[in-house]
C-alpha cells in the first residue's frame, strides 16, 4: 500500500496530559481508512495534530512524501489535505455559496475553483437549491453535506473526516455514508474518524482502533469483525 499519510510515533500533549502516546498509522491513496475508538481516546487530538492545529512533541508526520509535523494549518491545506471538522462548524451567518468560497480560500487557480463549485453543487443538489441561504438555516444533514463540500473545495488529495455521523438521524447518517462511498468510488482518499462501526464497516478498507492515546488494533475489516473484544465493545455482540 502506498501511504499518502504516514504518521509515526506521534506524541501530543495538552500541558502535562499526554493525549497521544506514540501513535503510528498510515492512510493509503484511494482508500478509506477508519479510526475507531471511545470518547477521550485521542481521535480528535490526532486529527488536529495531522491538520496542523496542534503541534506534536515527538514523532513524524509525512504527507505525500513531505514532512508536515509542525507546519501551519494553511500550509497543510495548501499541500492537499482538507478537514471536515467534528460538529461540522460551517459558517452559519454566511451563505452556502460563501461557505464554499471559504473552502477554496487558499487556492490560487481561481478559474478552476468556479468549475469545482459547479461540480459540487451538481453532486449536492440540495446545496444548489439553498445556495443563497444562510448556512445556519440548513438542517443538520445539509450542514454536514456543506461541511464536506466546503472541504472538497480545496481540491484535496486526502479528506479528513471527524465523526461525520455524530448527532444526525439514522436516515441522514445513511445518506452521509452513501456520499462517502461515492467519494471513494471517485478515487478520493479518506481518513475517517467514526464511532458508528456498523456504518464504517460498509465503506472502510482498513481499520485502526485507538484507546488511551495508543493504537490498540490495526487490521482489515474482516479481522475487525472477527475480533472478540471489538465485537463486544462496538458491535453490541453479547454471545
Amino acid at each position, binding site marked *: 500500500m502506498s501511504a499518502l499519510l504516514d504518521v509515526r510515533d506521534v506524541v501530543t500533549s495538552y500541558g502535562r496530559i499526554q493525549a497521544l502516546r506514540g501513535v503510528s498509522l498510515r492512510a493509503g491513496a484511494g482508500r478509506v481508512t477508519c479510526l475507531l475508538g471511545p470518547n477521550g481516546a485521542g481521535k480528535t487530538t490526532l486529527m488536529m495534530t495531522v*491538520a496542523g*492545529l496542534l503541534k506534536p512533541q515527538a514523532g513524524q508526520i509525512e504527507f505525500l512524501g513531505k514532512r508536515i509535523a509542525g507546519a*501551519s*494549518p*494553511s500550509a*497543510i*491545506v*495548501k499541500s492537499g489535505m*482538507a*478537514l471536515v*471538522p467534528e460538529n461540522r*462548524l*460551517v*459558517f*452559519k*451567518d*454566511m451563505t452556502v455559496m*460563501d461557505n464554499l*468560497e*471559504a*473552502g477554496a*480560500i*487558499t487556492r490560487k487557480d481561481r478559474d478552476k475553483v468556479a468549475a469545482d463549485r459547479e461540480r459540487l453543487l451538481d453532486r449536492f443538489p440540495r446545496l444548489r437549491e439553498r445556495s443563497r441561504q444562510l448556512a445556519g438555516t440548513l438542517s443538520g444533514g445539509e450542514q454536514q453535506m456543506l461541511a464536506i463540500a*466546503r*472541504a472538497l473545495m*480545496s481540491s484535496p488529495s486526502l479528506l479528513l473526516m471527524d465523526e461525520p455521523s455524530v448527532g444526525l438521524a439514522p436516515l441522514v447518517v445513511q445518506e452521509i455514508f452513501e456520499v462517502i462511498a461515492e467519494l471513494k468510488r471517485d478515487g478520493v482518499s479518506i481518513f475517517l474518524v467514526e464511532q458508528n462501526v456498523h456504518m464504517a464497516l460498509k465503506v472502510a478498507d482498513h481499520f485502526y482502533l485507538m484507546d488511551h492515546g495508543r493504537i490498540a488494533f490495526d487490521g482489515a475489516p474482516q479481522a475487525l469483525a472477527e475480533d472478540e473484544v471489538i465485537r463486544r465493545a462496538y458491535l453490541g455482540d453479547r454471545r
Partner: protein
Amino acid sequence: MWVDLFQNTIEGMANGSAYALMALGFTLMFGVVGKLNLAYGAVLMVGVYAGVYVHLEWQAGWAASAVAVVLGAVVAGIYVERTCFAPMRHGAAITSMVASFAIWMQLEEAATLALPRHSYPFPSLVEGTVIHLGPLLLRRDHLVMLAVALVVMAALEWLVRGSRFGLGLRAIAENPRAAGFVGRNVERTLFFAFVLASAVGGVAGWLVASADQHVSAMFGMWATFKGLIAAMLGGLGSLRGAVAGGLLLGVVEAHALWLAGPQIRDLCAYLLLFLLLILRPGGLSGQARIQRDAAAYGRL
C-alpha cells in the same frame, strides 16, 4: 426655517461621515476579535500629530500631511495590536481592553512630550470658503470630507463583502476555529484587520483635522468618544450600522448646535445614545444579537 434645517442636515452629514469612518474602525476590530480597542482614538491622534510634524518641519502641504497621518495611525495601530491584542488572542477581552486603555494614556503622554504646545495648526485641504447653492451656504472642506468618506466606505464595503480578504475576515469573525480549518491564517488576517481599521481611522483623523485646521492632544479622547458613540448607536460589530450611527450622530449634533449651542450639542449626543440603548439595546442594527445573548444567559 426649512433652509436652516436642510443646511444643518448637510453639515451634520459631513461631520457624521467622519464619525462613521471612526465607528467603522471600532466596529471592524470589535467584529473580528470581539474586543474593544480603547486606544483607537489615541492611534488617530498619533497619526494627526505625525501630519502636524511633517507640516511644521518640512512645510508639507495637504497631500504629504495626509500620507503622514495615515502612516502614523497605521504604525501606532500595529503597536497597539502587538502589545494589547496579539499576546492575548484567546479570551481575555477585559485584559485587552484595560491594556489598550493604558496604551491610550501612554500615546497621549508621548504625543504631548513630542509636541508640547496645547494646539498646533494643520494644513487645510481646500482653500476658499463656501459655495452658494441657491439659499444654501456649503463649506467646501465639508463637501470634500463627505465625498472622501463615502469613497472610503464604498471601498471598505467592497473589501469586506466582495473580496477574498473580506471572506476570510467574515469567516474569522464568525468562527475562528473553522476559519483555521479551511486554511485561513487567522493570526495574519487579524493583524491586517487592525492595520485596515487604523488606516480608515487615519483618513477620518486627517479629514477632521484639516477641516478644523488645528489639533491638540485631546483629539484622541474626542475621537474615541465620537467613534464609540457612533459605533454603539449602529450596533457594535455591524459595518452598515456604523455608517448609519455616524451619520445620525452628526445630524443630531448639527441641529442641536444650531438650536442650543455647543454645550447642549454634546449633551444631546449622550442623550441620543442613552435613549437608543434603552429602546433598541443592540443599536440600530444589532437588536437580534443582543436578544440571542440574553436568551443564552437566561438558560444558565
